[in-house]
């Protein structure tokens, strides 16, 4: 399991993994297909350094070769550790909101915080199911295309460049014959 969460209030994209996380969304990187192993992602490390991404739970993978050459990834799942990490993140978030709010009654907020912590303690199952739901989310080809198009539009907004000319040549071909023949076949 390699569980990360978007700790910012904006959408965060991790380009070299090809994923985008909504604000506060958590995802298990070992459960989705990524372009490169998440452990090697430089963009993830950068987002972590900037505080946009928090790593909630990371465990080392042990590859076991089973009968008939099937490779499975085995890991030990530390539920308690995960719960503690989530509680910590939740507490930090609420603390942040309390300190940033001028008009909020501190005593009231502390009470809310205590109540929320109690809920988390009493209902570990509900926390787990929420995480599993979001970690099972997979990105389809169409969504990926849209994400790339959007990021490219943003990236090339202020790019200047003239028409790019290469080595141009005009050649005679039997293209029309091929097109007619193939149009009937396909």
């Amino acid at each position, binding site marked *: 399991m390699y569980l990360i969460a978007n700790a910012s209030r904006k959408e965060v994209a991790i380009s070299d993994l090809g994923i985008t996380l909504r604000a506060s969304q958590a995802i298990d990187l070992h459960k989705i297909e990524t372009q*490169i192993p998440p452990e090697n992602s430089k963009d993830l490390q950068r987002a972590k350094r900037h505080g946009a991404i928090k790593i909630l739970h990371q465990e080392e993978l042990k590859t076991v070769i089973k009968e008939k050459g099937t490779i499975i990834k085995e890991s030990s799942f530390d539920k308690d550790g995960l719960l503690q990490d989530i509680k910590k993140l939740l507490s930090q978030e609420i603390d942040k909101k309390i300190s940033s709010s001028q008009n909020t009654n501190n005593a009231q907020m502390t009470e809310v915080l205590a109540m929320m912590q109690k809920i988390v303690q009493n209902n570990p199952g509900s926390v787990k199911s929420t995480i599993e739901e979001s970690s099972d989310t997979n990105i389809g080809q169409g969504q*990926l*295309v849209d994400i790339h198009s959007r990021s490219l539009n943003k990236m090339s907004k202020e790019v200047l*460049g003239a028409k790019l*000319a290469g080595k141009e040549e*005009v050649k005679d*071909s039997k293209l029309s014959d091929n097109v007619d023949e193939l149009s009937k076949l396909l």
Partner: protein
Amino acid sequence: MSEKSRACGADVGTMFFQTAEQKDQNDIKFNTIRNSFVQIEETDDIEDVLKQNSWQYIKGDGKYLILGEDSLRVAKLFPGKVDLRRPLADGVLNKNEPSKMLVLSEMIRLSLGDPTDPKSVVCACISSPPIDGSVDSAFHKARLTGMFKRLGWNVKIIEEGLAVILSERPTVTESDGTEAPYSGFGISFGAGKINCVLAYKGLKILGMSIKKSGDWIDQKVAEQLGVPLAQVTSKKERELDFTNLPEDDDILYALDIYYGVMIENVFNHFAKKFIEIDSEFDAPLDIVIAGGTSSPKGFCSKVEEVVRGLKLPFKIKDIRVSSDPRNSVVKGCLTQAIITQKKIAKATEDELSDILGD
């Protein structure tokens, strides 16, 4: 009156980015751009220097990037100071290159331009599934599609080996004596990868790709002989002739050996795949070959020589190298683009995604 819809072929290769568009009934206009770039430092007079030399460049995010053939010229002018960089490696977007997306998307925008209407189509090709554990093309396909789609193109993606088949028209003679066109093997020997497809009447039956191709040969020869990589590549492009190999030239001799290894490797792997699918092809098959790595003179004889020594699960009717190996793939993409455009012209909105294979 609105302009006619455009149909274009695009081959985004490791070494070159090529486009093709039909000029009139019989002529095709090909455009070939070296798929590389260099980044140069910003100075007070940088724009003047770029304009005086007529170097093709883009400026964005505080960077000046020189693209295409000019990048090679600049890299040669400042050896050791400017690195020649490539947006692609091994047939997919280069994961170690941070500017790959910007460079490639701008290269596409500045060379292909915009579609003339919502029915214009571009067909690009990607590698078939790899059989050697190299990176597959799923993510690459999404990124490439995004680059064309954001400009307003309808995008059709096909496998590179199929593009060779659509361009070269191999045939199989059926048991009743009739000829099935666009049937047989299409093999594209690129710089980063070799792509193979077995097709029947223009439909892909089996496809695979292997990393050990042109760049791999150059690296191996350079390693074995302890000579610079650029020297090997240059010698390969200018002097390699399989019909006339001088025995006293170490580089050419080593190139011949590694070409043999590459050909043997691809046919052995394809034979295994052929057995796996339990193909019912029993008629002898045409093999058509294209791609820059197949350009040296006598390549076809080299393939025949290697294949003769192999035990293959299929019979070979004929082996031939395209008369225009460097343009064959992009011509196949153009063929598919025109067919797709004709279908789109008659299609309803609901049928679009089926035609484009989304």
